[in-house]
């Protein structure tokens, strides 16, 4: 019984932390969010591909690294903490669904390119009229996995047209798409992939929450009112303690779910829904509490805090919100 990351996992964590800290300062995040067409740049994405991250989950047969959900969660937590805008999660999600629900032929066709970073992918889950809306990173994607009735289909990106949508979270661009070309159904149900993606989002929200907790604690130590640091007042310090409680709980359930998906598949669905439910709540409540600790300055556009708040709040609704996942927990623990 041991919760520690392995040496290899810690090495991945350190690499991610250093890489993201150097390349994604708040000014750069704002530039990508507000001044680029897609919310990221091809050069930035290329550098992420050089680290091998898109290959994390893909098996070695298809040119991937064949690593587990724990490794993915480690990277995702760092991406959330850094708030680095990139099409990484979209690409990983498309690959996970094709790997899980696709035929041998579909896997052979799409996975090597996605793993190598030569192709970008995304997943469209929200059907809207003739198309799909709120599709992340859709513009220029090479492969799009679509929610189609009760199943999944895959489409080549060349037949997809994308219109930009106004998103709550400016660091992950959303698009409305229409699919003109052929849609090829995936034979499997993709249930495990959906759990993997939910846990990846939970991990990202853990990073988001941790970062805003750190910001709140730093501010509470330095900001003085009535002649002393506001962190000396229990109304503030207890709010920070509450944030830590939620961050640690979200991290525990997320690590457990990632481990279960890798090593104890029968526990995977329940663990994944517990993690996504808990982290969906913590992922925006902690930034919201951090904003309160900051007072007026936290409400300004100029302060960076709102960027994390918006990511955390948006993550709460992607791949099932807290209420939906609690309903699934209720069902899985036998509350019929």
């Amino acid at each position: 019984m041991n919760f520690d990351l392995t040496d290899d996992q810690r090495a991945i964590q350190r690499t991610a932390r250093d890489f993201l800290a150097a390349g994604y300062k708040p000014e750069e995040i704002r530039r990508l969010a507000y001044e680029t067409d897609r919310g990221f740049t091809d050069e930035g994405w290329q550098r992420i591909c050089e680290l091998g991250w898109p290959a994390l989950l893909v098996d070695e047969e298809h040119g991937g690294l064949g690593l587990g959900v724990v490794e993915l969660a480690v990277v995702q937590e760092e991406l959330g903490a850094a708030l680095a805008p990139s099409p990484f999660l979209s690409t990983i999600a498309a690959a996970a669904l094709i790997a899980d629900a696709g035929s041998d032929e579909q896997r052979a066709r799409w996975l090597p390119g996605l793993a190598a970073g030569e192709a970008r992918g995304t997943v469209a889950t929200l059907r809207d009229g003739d198309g799909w809306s709120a599709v992340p990173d859709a513009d220029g994607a090479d492969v799009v996995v679509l929610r189609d009735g009760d199943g999944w289909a895959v489409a080549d990106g060349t037949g997809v047209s994308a219109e930009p949508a106004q998103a709550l979270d400016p660091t992950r661009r959303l698009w409305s798409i229409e699919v003109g070309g052929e849609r090829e159904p995936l034979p499997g149900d993709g249930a495990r992939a959906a759990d993997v993606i939910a846990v990846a989002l939970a991990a990202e929200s853990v990073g988001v929450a941790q970062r805003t907790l750190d910001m709140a604690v730093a501010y509470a130590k330095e900001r003085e009112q009535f002649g002393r640091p506001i962190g000396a007042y229990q109304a503030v310090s207890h709010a920070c303690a509450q944030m830590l409680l939620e961050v640690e709980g979200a991290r525990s359930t997320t690590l457990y779910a990632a481990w279960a998906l890798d090593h104890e598949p029968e526990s995977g669905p329940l663990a994944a829904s517990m993690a996504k439910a808990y982290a969906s709540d913590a992922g925006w409540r902690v930034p919201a509490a951090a904003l309160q600790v900051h007072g007026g300055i936290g409400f300004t556009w100029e302060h960076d805090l709102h960027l994390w708040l918006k990511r955390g709040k948006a993550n709460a609704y992607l791949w099932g919100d807290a209420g939906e996942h609690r309903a699934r927990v209720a069902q899985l623990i036998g509350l019929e």
Partner: protein
Amino acid sequence: MDLTLSPSEESFRDELRAWLDANHPGREPEGDDAGFTFRRSWQRKLHDAGWAGVSWPTEYGGRGATLVEQAIYNEEFVRAQAPSAANVLGLAMGGPTVIAHGSDEQKRRYLEPILSAEEIWCQGFSEPGSGSDLASVKTRAVRDGDDWLVTGQKVWTTLAHHAKWCMLVARTDPDAPKHQGLSYFLMDMEQDAIQVRPLRQITGESEFNELFMEEARIPHENIIGGEGNGWAVAITTLMHERATLAFGLQVSVKLALRQLMEEAKASGAAADPQVRDRLAQLYIEAEVLRLNAYRGLTAIMRNGVPGPEGSLGKWQWAEVNQALTELAMDVRGPRAVLQDDTWTYRFLRARANSIEGGTTEILKNIVAERVLGLPRMR
């Protein structure tokens, strides 16, 4: 990361589980004296089989269990719904304190009778004027030859009416700064200068006592850890209280939740989406308690000290257990105004969870100051 039990941990669990299966003494009889006698003979049985003081080093009669094994022990006890040992405070707090701070002679004298339940221990820390601010205790000890004479009042002393020894924190130097003038005594309860009065609580029962001391006599050699070191020794006792309780607590929450789920299904309340949502949330939070507790163990094994998870556990347990009993009352609906044989009691008893063994406010202070490094209040 490996969240499975190792083969040796599994065999520890299987051995204990089989033993509990074969030796479970059944339900505890009603009534304080009958219940106590029952738990005392249960502890003798545990001791004879080597299952008392599992965390204690083998040289002091314990089993030298690893942290994970101690966690398994607490989980299995609750899972089997086995009664607790009679001498809970001696086993969980007194013994470990003597082992950490006692002299060789004190270890020889006190440890074995704790394990065998021959001598029961109680704890004299809190006073009417000193709850969370433990270092402000007013009970005074005055030197009288080779002895000390103790005068004052203690409160919330569990088991005082059965106890032979009381872990007593008293002021031996009224002129020293408040944390430095304290000493940690082992006080013989069998003397006329001590009066024990049961303290009736909101549930109507009396789990606790008040203790009145009027020149109670304690030999100087009964100080643990040296005169004036009472604060450090008392902290050891409190750390043991918090560290060892977490695992049993999280399993008892799970058992109560299991019962509530069955009742909600039987009554049809589980069909209500709001009830389902709250039950699912409680299930998740109970799992968080378990996972945080194990992460805390990993941190202790790595760093030798509890990580942030350790400080959070008792606080979170109190919230979860209170929320659980509140939902149980809601599930009973208008019938909640009638006293039943489970939830009415549990709802009332749970109000103490966020006070006993460190109030939630104090635990938040600890987290804020020692984990997050925020400035000290005041």
